[in-house]
């Protein structure tokens, strides 16, 4: 039955890998958010460093390119005084035919302490976590469509920063939910933290009905989805989905599911607008909303560093 035990937790229920928000208890999520709050001040100091990961090696393993996410992990690790090694594997080992687990074995032999993994296949970080040395911690930095837990956590941090309590919120997640690891992580986090109404909003090609099993209300109408919302999380529409069988055109998508000032006016007056970035102006979100007073898109990025510092420092303190 080993394969069924939650691989993220040790026998004491402590976090040893961060692979998905799903299956993590509320107190672990809250602990991460509280720890992140303590780290926000580090970025304001003249010397932006704390020595918590001094002497530790953090390997950024990006099997799929993402300069932005990699950079935020790199900054977070450096602020914790870790040695950071960036490996753009999409361009190296994999193209030489080396298997994923061989790459991991080799890097483990270089005395890695933590792997930050981005991979195009759902579940790849689980495979790595199962086969790396016991002292190595794995952080999922995005796997296929499955999960992007640090993004989910920084979204929760952002919501908590502006809304204080989760217990009375209505949160709308809008866009390409079926292909979005961010949406899945957000939904699990919001559910665990006790948000009573989570809406998944978009056309049926991007918002399948079986999302209901994840505890969300499925809306195929933008007005209904945004009405009286406290938080609107917009998702990026990938270029390859803008035309074809999923959607006819970016234009029609914007008309039916784009976030404009008119639509946003249906939400609560103090609504916040979030987006994991990078944004497509005029595709999923109007510039006036993205740059407007309700937008917290840039603070999200800032909070992301503190949240990733929190995750890495907590993992480093727990043994398998």
């Amino acid at each position, binding site marked *: *039955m*080993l*394969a*069924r035990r*939650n*691989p993220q937790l040790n026998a004491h229920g402590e976090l040893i890998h961060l692979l998905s928000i*799903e299956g993590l208890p509320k107190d672990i999520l809250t602990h991460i958010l509280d720890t992140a709050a303590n780290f926000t001040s580090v970025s304001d100091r003249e010397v932006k460093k704390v020595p918590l990961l001094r002497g530790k090696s953090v390997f950024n393993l990006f099997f799929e390119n993402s300069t932005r996410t990699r950079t935020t992990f790199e900054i977070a690790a450096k602020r914790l005084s870790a040695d950071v090694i960036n490996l753009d594997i999409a361009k190296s080992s994999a193209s030489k035919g080396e*298997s*994923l*687990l061989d790459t991991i074995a080799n890097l483990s032999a270089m005395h890695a302490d933590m792997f930050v993994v981005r*991979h195009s*296949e*759902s*579940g*790849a970080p*689980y*495979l790595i976590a199962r*086969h790396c040395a016991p002292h190595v911690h794995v952080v999922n930095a995005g*796997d*296929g*469509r*499955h*999960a992007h837990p640090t993004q989910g956590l920084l979204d929760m941090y952002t919501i908590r920063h502006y809304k204080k309590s989760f217990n009375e919120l209505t949160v709308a997640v809008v866009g390409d939910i*079926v292909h979005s*690891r961010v949406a*899945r992580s957000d939904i699990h986090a919001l559910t665990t933290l006790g948000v009573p109404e989570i809406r998944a909003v978009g056309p049926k090609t991007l918002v*399948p009905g*079986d*999302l209901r*099993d*994840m505890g969300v209300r499925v809306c195929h109408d933008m007005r209904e989805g945004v009405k009286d919302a406290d938080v609107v999380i917009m998702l990026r529409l990938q270029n390859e989905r803008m035309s074809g069988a999923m959607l006819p055109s970016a234009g029609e998508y914007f008309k039916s599911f784009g976030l404009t000032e008119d639509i946003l006016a249906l939400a609560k007056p103090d609504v916040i607008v979030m987006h994991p970035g990078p944004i497509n102006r005029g595709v999923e979100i109007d510039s006036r909303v993205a740059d407007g007073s309700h937008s917290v898109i840039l603070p999200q990025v800032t909070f992301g560093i503190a949240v990733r510092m929190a995750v890495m420092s907590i993992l480093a303190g727990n043994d398998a």
Partner: protein
Amino acid sequence: MKILIRNGRVVDPASGRDEAADVAIAAGRIVAIGKVPADFAPDRTIEADGCVVAPGLVDLAARLKEPGPGALESELAAAAAGGVTSLVCPPDMDPPLDEPGLVDMLKFRARKLSRCRLFPLGALTQGLAGAEITEMMALTDAGCVGFSQAEATMRDNLTLLRAMQYASTRGYAVWLRPKDPSLSGGVAASGAVATRLGLSGVPVASETIAIHTIVELVRQTVARVHFCRLSSAAGVELVRRAKAEGLPVTADVSINSLHLTDVDIGYFNSDMRVTPPLRQGKDRDALRAALADGTIDALVSDHTPVGHDDKMLPFGEATPGATGLELLLSLALKWGNESRLTLAQSLARVTSDPVRVLGEALGSLGQSAGRLVEGGVADVCVFDPQAEWQVTPEALHSRGKHTPFDAASTGTRMPGRVRHTLVAGTLAWSAATEANAA
């Protein structure tokens, strides 16, 4: 070689016989069940106290292809160790079985090993490319028992129609895995689990659209069709209706779909990556009920050895397939126990019923394979129904070590353990011999 199997419980599903009896075997045939002639002098006596003496198992789907050379030896040894005395292999070998010479060679090599009877399916189209039909008559003469596209699809419905027409000219059976080419690209069954895990899905419609199409073509051609590896409740229902209409169709289900669901994927366990993908609980329940009521004719291992490196990959990149020959008996018994069937009823789906599916393609062997009858071939499986075991990869004879039923994975408790396997009256495998050798 004369063999006496003593004091066993003889269970023959075809006749319903279930009684304590001795079985006498000589010159490859069963000479007596029960009253053994006083002058019968066996060269060897198998003590079968506490054991069931059953027909050897007939597995309608076992792949022998990979990995590496010597695969035939290891996989036929696995068959013998699993009590399987006849197996049907799909044509997706390397190269595909689309020429009589390849079939001759395969049958010749299998015969030399004398572990298990091998009945190949010929490729329905050349190179399994789905475009040009093969020389079905020559392939049948070489020993093919039917024609199949395995996991490959047909180019279009016209080609499928022509292939079915041509096959039906001589009454050859066409074995088809019902799947729509454009809907079957996912790595897990569509549904809540795939959505939650972010895995691409294969909708039930992939199976039902294909069955609808094939059934329509059966109505036109009256070709004999065997549906391979049903996976959904809706698929079962369509086959049930086709049978009720009197169409010449049969069907099988794999041990994986019979016992597991998509929930078993757990944390992206690549051992659960099989084709067709594991579906939901209601599908599994419908498959179990359909196997019990005969809508599904046979239970198959869908044995597909996959190398370790090809499984140690992220779920979506892992090669689909699981080892199964050595698990078939236990998983048939497990299903039978859980469904409150008699031993004879459970065993029928892996012995006499698959032989009925093969029908005339077996020739004279069809009279007695999958059965225990005096004068019939002595293909026998002796097993201990009380023994319980768990699957440990290193103990398997197959080169395929990955299975969803791995003790470390689902921890499935497996009822029943094979003690002796006889093919044509010769001991093909024996637990005792193996223990001595070790």
